[in-house]
């Protein structure tokens, strides 16, 4: 591929609120947090591990004995965050610190809201700052702060039933960049053209063209303009609704093999009842109004039957 315009990019943002079953150990730890109490677990060697783990790090034995530790402790080590990121515990500069709570044998990682950096030190005494209304979540501990800071902690409460579940929202924000070959194809779509490329070794016509032919490993070359009609090789009728679905079911998702192409792509078929769609049915593209075209396959709104005779099975059998 010769040097051309920059590859196309678009945001791809996905997110989901995952749930977490906590199990007996973490469930009791979270219940403790709701009462402003911090628990560790006693390991096989007698040490108190904070936060608790379900299985011993050296023997793999299940651990069950929860041990309450203090809400305050000592900074064992730390690093400074001068520019906090979104979703971190504090919006102003803070320290990530390893804090060994009194009664614990292992340090836990948490944020220390210390003011300026020169107020943080190894050996510093800190105490937990609790959320105004603890609810059995890890964020019930907002952060730690210097123990000499006035105020002090509210009194701990009674521990309730173990927490069984937490929600863990995950957001992923990507910039999706397509290959130079696919960019060329997408720019063709913006002009209403369907541009494929041919593998110089096997001679197969790919649409979109490929940076590497899956069979031969070399880029497809040239520009093979394909017509906007072809044949349905196979298809399914999607009747099932699901989270994130962008086309209302029922709809026909079909592999469309354009005349002259050697590989089909998935698209939507409308223009007849779903049960009338057949393998071998001849279809043509129905384009969006030209003013709505962009660098996307969405420019083709759907495919519809042409009314021609079906293609013989043998003509597309090797594309199934």
């Amino acid at each position: 591929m010769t040097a051309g315009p920059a590859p196309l990019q678009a945001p791809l943002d996905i997110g989901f609120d995952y749930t977490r079953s906590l199990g007996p150990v973490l469930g009791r730890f979270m219940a403790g947090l709701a009462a402003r109490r911090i628990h560790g677990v006693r390991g096989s060697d007698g040490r108190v591990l904070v936060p608790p783990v379900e299985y011993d790090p050296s023997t793999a034995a299940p651990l069950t004995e929860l041990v309450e530790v203090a809400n305050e402790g000592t900074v064992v080590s730390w690093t400074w965050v001068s520019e906090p990121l979104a979703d971190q515990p504090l919006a102003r500069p803070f320290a990530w610190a390893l804090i060994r709570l009194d009664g614990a044998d292992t340090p836990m990682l948490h944020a220390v809201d210390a003011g300026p950096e020169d107020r943080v030190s190894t050996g510093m005494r800190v105490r937990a700052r609790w959320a105004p209304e603890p609810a059995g979540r890890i964020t019930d501990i907002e952060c730690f702060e210097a123990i000499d800071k006035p105020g002090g902690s509210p009194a701990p409460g009674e521990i309730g039933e173990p927490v069984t579940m937490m929600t863990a929202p995950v957001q992923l924000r990507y910039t999706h960049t397509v290959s130079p070959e696919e960019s060329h194809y997408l720019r063709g779509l913006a002009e209403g053209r369907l541009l494929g490329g041919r593998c110089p070794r096997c001679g197969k016509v790919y649409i979109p063209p490929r940076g590497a032919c899956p069979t031969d490993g070399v880029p497809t070359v040239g520009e093979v303009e394909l017509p906007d009609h072809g044949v349905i090789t196979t298809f399914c009728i999607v009747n099932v609704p699901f989270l994130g679905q962008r086309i209302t079911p029922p709809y026909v998702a079909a592999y469309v093999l354009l005349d002259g192409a050697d590989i089909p792509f998935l698209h939507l078929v409308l223009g007849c009842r779903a049960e009338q769609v057949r393998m071998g049915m001849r279809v043509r593209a129905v384009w969006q109004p030209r003013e709505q075209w962009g660098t996307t396959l969405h420019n083709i709104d759907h495919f519809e039957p042409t009314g021609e005779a079906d293609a013989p099975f043998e003509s597309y059998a090797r594309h199934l």
Partner: protein
Amino acid sequence: MSKQRAAVIGTGQTKHTTKRLDVSMAGLCREAIDRALADAGVDWPDIDAVVLGKAPDLFEGVMMPELALADALGAPGKPLLRVHTAGSVGGSTANVAASLVQAGVHRRVLAVAFEKQSESNAMWALSIAPPFTMPVGAGAGGYFAPHVRSYIRRSGAPDHIGALVAVKDRRNGARNPYAHLHQPDITVDSVLSSTMLWDPIRYDETCPSSDGAAALVLADEAAADAARQPVAWLRATAMRTEPTTFAGRDQVNPQAGRDAAAALWTSAGIRDPLAEVDVAEIYVPFSWFEPMWLENLGFTEQGNGWRITESGDTELGGRLPVNPSGGVLSSNPIGASGLLRFAEAASQVMGRAGDCQVDGARTALGHAYGGGSQYFAMWVTSATKEW
């Protein structure tokens, strides 16, 4: 190339169900592991390495779960590997664990795989449309349904074959105390009248969404000889891969599956699989994949898989019982589903398959596939060290 002998000396699994809200992922894995260690008669100090299998991270939203699970897997101080081949991962996990023994690297290796589908939404995770494409994808069912349609057209199979498989596997599952679905009263008519989800795949022809885990212990010859109970000797393993799309790709009878099967039978010294294999645990998440994979695996020539199913030969008591455990159609903790096939193939030749036992099973196939039929993993287990 000479390999050391290897055997499965113990297997374990959870009772698969829609939601295991009482345990964490770690606790879920440990249920299966503890059962496998007990079945093998070994304890943590006997385990030299751990191999974990897990389907795509997006399924639970936990990046690299092998790190957070290291304590629960008993991995500190030992090698821990993660295997990742989508839905086939459980099978690949078993084969990777086996290779560590066959290579003479380790004496006993623990293989674990799990999925906690209730913490996520696999349908959502499998249907994310990248920019610039048409968002017509609809999960695994939406992916495979067109290829099932191609199979039906190409083979001329009658419409009820998929329902026959669903009825068989669900009734088998009803005999398996660990199976998610227990549907002893399911009938061909009830399957055929169930909702069409991804035409031509119906609701009752589709695997459930399960929480579950599986584990097995692989051992070298000396450790297997020392086991207190019968073991499952590995007669052959095979894995092959192919790209998701290429011009001329056969999605009904993928090349990688054919190549893996050919390598497997050659390695096992099996000339006529239908005659020489006593029982098969085949990865069938949608019922039509039983006849499709019977052909792909070389049990019969292309186009005739459905005839084996229709004849009843794949039922318990038939010529080649397929999925006596109930298979993926009865339990689908995705990451673990492949390992379950491999573990069930071991249990059959160990004689420890309970009410799902095939009488006199001496040679068994475990099989898994994953991705868009891209990854294939399989093994043959034997009741005897020599065959």
